[in-house]
C-alpha cells in the first residue's frame, strides 16, 4: 500500500500541470472570445465552387 504515497504525489503534480495550463491559456487570452472560433472552423480555406 505504500505505493499510494507515490501515486498520490504523482496525481497531485499532474493536476498541478493542468492548473498551470489553465493559467497559461488565460494569460494568452484564450478565454476572451469563446464564440467566434466556433464559427471560424466552419469556413472553408479553399475557394467554393463559383457559379
Amino acid at each position: 500500500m505504500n505505493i499510494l504515497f507515490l501515486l498520490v504525489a504523482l496525481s497531485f503534480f499532474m493536476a498541478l500541470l493542468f492548473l498551470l495550463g489553465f493559467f497559461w491559456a488565460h494569460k494568452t487570452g484564450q478565454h476572451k472570445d469563446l464564440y467566434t472560433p466556433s464559427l471560424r472552423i466552419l469556413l472553408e480555406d479553399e475557394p467554393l465552387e463559383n457559379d
Partner: protein
Amino acid sequence: MYCFHCGEKCILEDYEFEDKNFCCLGCKTVYQILKDNNLGNYYHYNEFPGTSQNKPELRFHYLEEASIIRSLLDFQNDSYSLISFYIPQIHCSSCLWLLEKLNQINPNILYSRVDFLKKQVNIRFDHNSLSLRDLVELLAKIGYEPKIQLQDSLRKEDRGKDPLILKIAVAGFCFGNIMLLSFPEYFGLKSTEKAFHNFFGYLNLLLCLPIVFYSGWDYFRSSWNQVKTKSLQIDFPLALGILVLFLRSFIEIIWDKGSGFSDTLSGLVFFLLIGKFVQQKTYHHISFERDYRSFFPISVALFDGIKYKPIPLSALKIGDRILIRNQEIIPADSILIQGEAQIDFGFVTGETSLQEKKSGELIYAGGKQTGGAIELEVVKSVSQSYLTQLWNQDLFKKESHDLFRTFSAKISQYFTWVLLGIACLVFLFWAFQDISLAISAFTAVLIVACPCALALSTPFTMSSALRILDRNGFYLKNTQSVEQLAEVNTLVFDKTGTLTSEIHKSIQIEPDLSSEEKNWVSSLCANSIHPLSRRIWNHYGQHKPEKIVAYKEIEGLGVKAQIQGHSIKLGSSSFIELSDKTPSYLSQVHLEIDGYYRGFYGFKNEYREGLQALNSLKKDYPIYLLSGDRDHELPFLSSIFKPDREMYFDQSPMDKLAFIGNLQEESKQVLMIGDGLNDSGALKKADFGISVTDNIDNFTPGSDAILEGNSFKKLSQFLLFSKDCVHIIHYCFGLSLIYNIIGLSMAITGKLSPLMAAILMPLSTLTIISFTSLGTTYAGFKRKLL
C-alpha cells in the same frame, strides 16, 4: 426582386451587374469590390449577407488629425499600429469571413481578427502605407462602417485581466484534490493506516493555504474595511467562517486531534467565488454610463484663419469658428455666422421638428443641422453649454445609487451580531464544565452558521432573473438592479420617443390627389432615401414606376423631378417657397405639382403597443407623464393620465429633474422611463431609470436599465417579475435558516463532526442554487416572460 447584397426589395432596376440586381449603388459597389478581390465567397456562406448601403455618404476627414488617431489606436510602433473597431453590422459568418480576409483587399492590413459577440474587429495595419482614414474608408466601402465614438477612447482602461477566474481555478483545483484526499477519512481508516491519515491531512492543509491566502483573501480584506467603517456586511461572517475553519483544521491536523475541516473550507470558498462570478453580468457594447460625449461628434472642423481643419472636441474654445455640415451635431452653444441653419432638436427635446435660425441667433448644443454647411462661432465651452451643463450637477458626480441596500445587506447586519451572540453564549455555557469542549462548540457554531447559502441566494437569483429579462429585450445594469426595480412605487413617463416610437410614423393628413398623381409622387419618393419619402412610398404601395428625368435631391430640404412632363416638388416649406405656413405639430412634407401647391403630408409618431396596459399599472402605482412637447395630444392621453395632476407639458430637462426630486421628497421611490438626452437628468435622479430605445446600438442616456422599444408593452410584467425575484430571495433566506438551525443544534453540543459539516455545507448550497433557478424560471413562466 431582391438586392443580391442586402436582400432589400429593389425599387428601381437601375442597379444591375453581372445579371444580379442591387437596391442601390452602395450595394452594387460593395459587390464589385469583393468580386475584383476574389472575395465572391462572401455570398456563398449566407443569403443576403450584406447590410443595405442605401444611406448618406460619410466623412472621415477627422481621422487625419494626429491627436484623434492617438486616442483611437491601441498600440503603435515604427512598423505597425493596432486598433479595434466596433462594427454593429457584424451579424453572420460571411461578415466574419470577409473581415478576416481584409488582407486580400489591401495588403497593408497585416492582420484582422473578429470578436463576433462583441461585434469588434482587431486590426493590425502598416500605418506607413495605409492611413487610419483610408482603413476606415475601406471598411465603410465594403459595408462595414466602424462606429467611432469619443467614449471609446475612455473605455479602454477597464480591459484588465480578470483575477476572479484565476481565483476560481485555484479554488476548484484545491477543492477537487481535497475532496479526493478526504474520502478515505469518510470511509474510516484503520489504526494500521495512521501514516495515510497524517499524509492526507498535511496535504489537505497545504492545499488550504492557497484557498485562504489567495482565493479567499478578498473576504478578509473587505471585512477588515467593514470593521474599520463599523458597518458589518455579509463578508464579515464569511471571513470569520473561513478563518475559524482554517485555524481549527490547522490545529487538529498539526496536533493530531482530528482530520480538520479542509473539505468544508475549500468547498465554501469555491462556491462563494462561483456566486461572485455569476453576479458579474456584462453585456458587450451596451453601455449604461453614456453621457453627451458618446453622442457628440469626435471632432469638429475649426477655421484657423485660412482653412478648416479637424480638431478634437476637447480642444474647442470659446470664440472658435467652426463648420457644421449636413447631419452633424452642434457640439457647443454657438452663434450662427453664416449659412442656412435648419436645426433638428430631436435629441434634446424629443420632438422632431426643424427650426430655422437666422445669422446672429444663438443655437444650443445638441441640435443637428440638416441642409447645407453652416458656420458658427462658439460662445460656450462644450461642457458648459445649455444641455451639457446637466452633467455638471452634483448628481452626476457621485454615485447616489450606492446608498441602496439590498435585502441580504440589511439582513447580514443583524445576522452577524446574532451569530456572534449565539457563539458566545454557547462558549459561556460549556466553559464552566469543559474548556476544550467550549472552544470546540464555539468554533463549530461559527462554522456551521457561516451564511454561505445567504450569500449565494442573491447572486444566483438575480443572474437568472437578468437572463430571463434580457431575453425579453430588457437589459439591466447589474444584478442589484432587480431589487431596486422591485422597490419602486411611482412611475414617471416621458412622452416622445418613450410612449411613442421614433420609427413608426403614420400619415395623418395627405393631399387630395388623383391616382395618376399618386403614382407620380410614389415614383419620385422611390428615388429618395429620406425616411419620410420612404414612408410616403410605402403608403401608396408599389406602383408601376414612372420614368423620371431631372431628378434632384437637396439634402435636408426635398426632392424634385420631371415625370411625364410634369414638374413635381416635394419637401419642406422653404423648399416649396411657401409663404404662409400652417403651424402644426405634425412633421410636414409639402407637395407642389406644376407650380401649384397641392397640400402637405402630415406625419405623426405612433404610440407604442401596450400603451393602454398602463391603465392596469395605475392600480398599483401612481403614474405621471412629463413631456417636452406642447399639449397637442392631451385629449388622447387623458384616457390614461388625468389632465391636471398627472400630465405635465412643456417640461425642460431641468423641470423634469426637479419634478423627480419633488416626488422623492415625498419619500416616493421613483421609476423614470425616458429616452433622449433631455431625460438624462431625470433618469439619473430617479431611484431607477429606464431608457427606451428602438435600436440598441443607438445612443441611450446613462440609466439603470435599457429597454427595447418593442418590449415596452411588457413593462408591467417586468415590474411584477422583479418583485417575484425578491420574494425568491426571501424564501432562500428561510431555507438557509433551516439548514443553519439543523447545523446549530449539532454544533452547540460540541458534537459537529467534520463529515457532517462537509455534507451540510454543499447540500445547503445545492439546495439554494436549484431552488433559485427553479423559482425564477417558474416566475418567468408565470409572468409570461419565458
